[in-house]
């Protein structure tokens, strides 16, 4: 490249940084951190941040823990501002559509916001109880937003007779733990064989089940909740289970996982659907055909990107770190040209606190077929375990053993052999790898049919068509 081309390119970048227009849709962790990172990258143009909640960006992990317990008020988890962000904040108004050809984001208010570059960070929402009438009963809650947490905290503070938690993933288990700490009777209903099975597999799930029962949780596994009954005042009273049993409960916490907020992208021609938004490891969104776009970026819970450590499989990571690290990469790439772009290659990591145990994990546990306990004591719930796939270590989990996690992280990063070499001390009793016992497949989802149309390369393309009707 000659000097004058170089100078022209530098001018181009500089001019975009000065006069470009960037819109971020989603004003939670990923959106805020991306806005800060854009300013740090020297972007001085017009920046708009759109969020459907009226609140300033806040931190969600405490909502199912400290907030429910009443230690921290729900409106006291605002995210610290790391940089001054001079942005136009459009809070409390949802984005409802994307017009790619004209580069416009349509808002629920009818307004249209133009952009040169767009960052999609709309994240996920809680899956609601499927029966709307039952879901509307007083005392039935989902846990995702600070408003949710404030309502549940008030309901728990009123000392209900019994709380029913439907779904024993991390959120449900954390909520059950809080209930027990508050001395409330709690029943947990989980359709799978144990808590946390989806994230950590059946072997760890069995330990989590013991933990719950030891702390006085009435844990029912292998059962679904079929319906909720209310009283004349519209308050929830009892739940019917698929095994014919019934539980009286005056608070019901529905924790059935999350749904990705991609509906607003319908018809936009992006690779957006229940799986999230497909993108490359540089956070650039794919269009519906899987062709990378240049002006639209995706980050956070809904970004589905290929990960080099996991055979380039496309993953979504609903983890805090993924939002923060991804935001930095996306922001950098939004104001850089191809040669300067960064890859988003996080080593996935998450944590949870429940029943007095600090659970931490690195890597992608469900990618593992086998698990081996490597350090500590299962009985005392202080241990480390590693997950393996094709003779390589792909993930690790610790219960009250987080200071060792880095050892496993380093091995995962270099795809070291599985099982890892045994430690010199504090060896667990069982040291043989066993099946990690992840569910065979997810509950079938109603997938839209993908239809390929056209023949000529200029016409060939994909379409999604609803498979219902």
């Amino acid at each position: 490249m000659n000097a004058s081309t170089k100078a022209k390119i530098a001018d181009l970048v500089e001019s975009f940084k000065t006069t470009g227009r960037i819109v971020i849709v989603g004003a939670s962790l990923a959106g805020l951190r991306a806005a800060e990172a854009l300013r740090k990258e020297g972007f001085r143009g017009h920046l708009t941040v759109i969020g459907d909640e009226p609140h300033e960006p806040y931190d969600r992990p405490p909502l199912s823990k400290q907030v429910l317990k009443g230690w921290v008020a729900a409106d006291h988890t605002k995210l610290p501002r790391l940089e001054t962000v001079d942005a136009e904040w459009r809070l409390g108004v949802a984005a409802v559509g994307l017009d790619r050809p004209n580069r416009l984001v349509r808002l629920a208010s009818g307004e249209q916001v133009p952009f040169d570059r767009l960052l999609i960070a709309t994240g996920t929402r809680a899956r609601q109880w499927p029966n709307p009438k039952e879901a509307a009963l007083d005392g039935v809650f989902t846990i995702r937003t600070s408003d949710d947490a404030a309502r549940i905290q008030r309901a728990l503070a009123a000392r209900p007779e019994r709380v029913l938690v439907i779904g024993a993933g991390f959120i449900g288990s954390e909520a059950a733990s809080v209930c027990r700490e508050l001395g409330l009777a709690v029943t947990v209903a989980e359709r799978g064989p144990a808590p946390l099975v989806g994230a950590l597999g059946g072997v760890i799930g069995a330990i989590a089940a013991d933990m719950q029962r030891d702390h006085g949780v009435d844990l029912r596994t292998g059962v679904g909740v079929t319906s909720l009954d209310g009283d004349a005042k519209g308050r929830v009273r009892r739940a019917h289970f698929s095994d014919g049993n019934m539980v009286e409960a005056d608070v019901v916490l529905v924790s059935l996982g999350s749904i990705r907020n991609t509906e607003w992208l319908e018809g936009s021609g992006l690779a957006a659907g229940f799986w999230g938004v497909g993108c490359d490891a540089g956070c650039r969104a794919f269009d519906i055909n899987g062709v990378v776009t240049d002006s639209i970026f995706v980050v956070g819970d809904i970004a589905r990107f290929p990960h080099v450590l996991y055979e380039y499989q496309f993953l979504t990571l609903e983890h805090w770190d993924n939002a923060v690290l991804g935001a930095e990469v996306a922001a950098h790439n939004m104001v850089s040209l191809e040669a300067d772009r960064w890859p988003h290659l996080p080593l996935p990591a998450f944590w949870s606190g429940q029943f007095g145990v600090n659970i931490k994990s690195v890597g992608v546990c469900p990618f593992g077929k086998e698990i081996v306990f490597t350090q500590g004591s299962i009985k005392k719930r202080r241990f480390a375990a590693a997950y393996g796939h094709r003779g390589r270590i792909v993930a690790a989990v610790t219960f009250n053993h987080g200071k060792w996690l880095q050892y496993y992280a380093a091995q995962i990063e270099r795809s070291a052999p599985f099982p890892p070499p045994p430690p010199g001390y504090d060896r667990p009793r069982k040291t043989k790898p066993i099946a990690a016992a992840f569910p065979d497949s997810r509950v079938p989802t109603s997938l839209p049919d993908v239809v390929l149309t056209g023949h000529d390369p200029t016409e060939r393309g994909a379409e999604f068509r609803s498979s219902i009707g």
Partner: protein
Amino acid sequence: MANLTPWQQALLYTNRANPYPLYTELRKTPVSRQPDGSYVVSTYREIVSILHDPRVSSDLRKRSKADGSEAREQTTAYDREPSMITSDPPEHDRVRRAAMLHFGPPHLPNLVDSQETEIRRIVGGLLNKLEGKTRIDVVDEFAYPLPVGVICGILGVPKEDEPHFHAWIEAFMNGLDLGPEAASAAQQRLREVGQQGLQQLKTYMARLLVKYAKQPGPGMLSAMANERSGERLSHGELLSNAMLLLFAGHETTVNLITHSVLTLLRHPDALEKLRRRPDLIVPGVEEFLRFESSVQFWPTRTALEDIDIAGTTIPKGAPIIVVYGSGNRDPSRFKNPDEVDLEREDNGHLGYSSGIHLCFGGPLARLEVQIAVGEFVRRVENPRLVVDPPPYRHNQIFRGPRHLLIDIDGIRE
């Protein structure tokens, strides 16, 4: 002394004030075998890897009996029962938990923060005493009295006994030499005196613990001696850990305060910046911890298996020395490592180690140094170094100036 390895040279007293050029030399071989069969780890990445490797032990009893290294000789002397710093899980975890029960979260989340008033009172008093003076010794008149006062209060060690245990600890520190000079007649004599000091400290601490067991008093030691839950330690465990906490609870902080002042006086830009932006003291102290680590290295680790690292195999049974002071200046981890940057980003220094043996008292030490150095910068007018480099103490691990003479124009309100 010809034919010394860079590591042996770094241990010579003449290089105490500035071991860093030798560390640069050392890092050319990240893991280097020494003539005595020990392995010195000097690069950041490799140190972190060793600190997190469960095939590396901190328990000297697991080291080959044939190893007559000075580290083993001297550090086991006071460790009849190992303290938490020289033990492995699960014992280590149990003891650390038992101690943390009386020091920090979740049981005492406010203990460290509640010291702030007392720390400010001590620091204020020390600076007030300097009014009217034009030449002061930062070590004796400022850096030493604060941590010793704070740790006595927290542990429940009577402050009036300070002159005694100060002398014993100092003797032990002076007697500890892990380098080529250890064999000299003079050092052998110091070693004798040091071992006596250690014995006296042990007798003193044992009596104090027995006293507290009979008659509970204030502080952490009494609480631990009277613990009735499952987290109760044996007398031997309590004794070695009480000695560790008293020692580690102030010696390292004295060095950190002194080094912080020294570093600021050597870098007037940083001093001026801190004057203008006092809140930089928080990241500033992290930078001082990186720049002049209070614990330069740690010699008690042992490989329990053959460990492949940085193109070398550390054989099973070999002693491992991790050189924090070198890792903290590793240019492959820190940009411009020999510069002081109060706003350094991603300052993952090893000044408090890493992994399960991460400094137990770090949160307390941070608070002490932040207040002490912050107030020093705010109140001391026109401080100037008198001697540079200042005279250093003999000890190689707990490296710090013995005196730091400075001239001042006065003390502000």
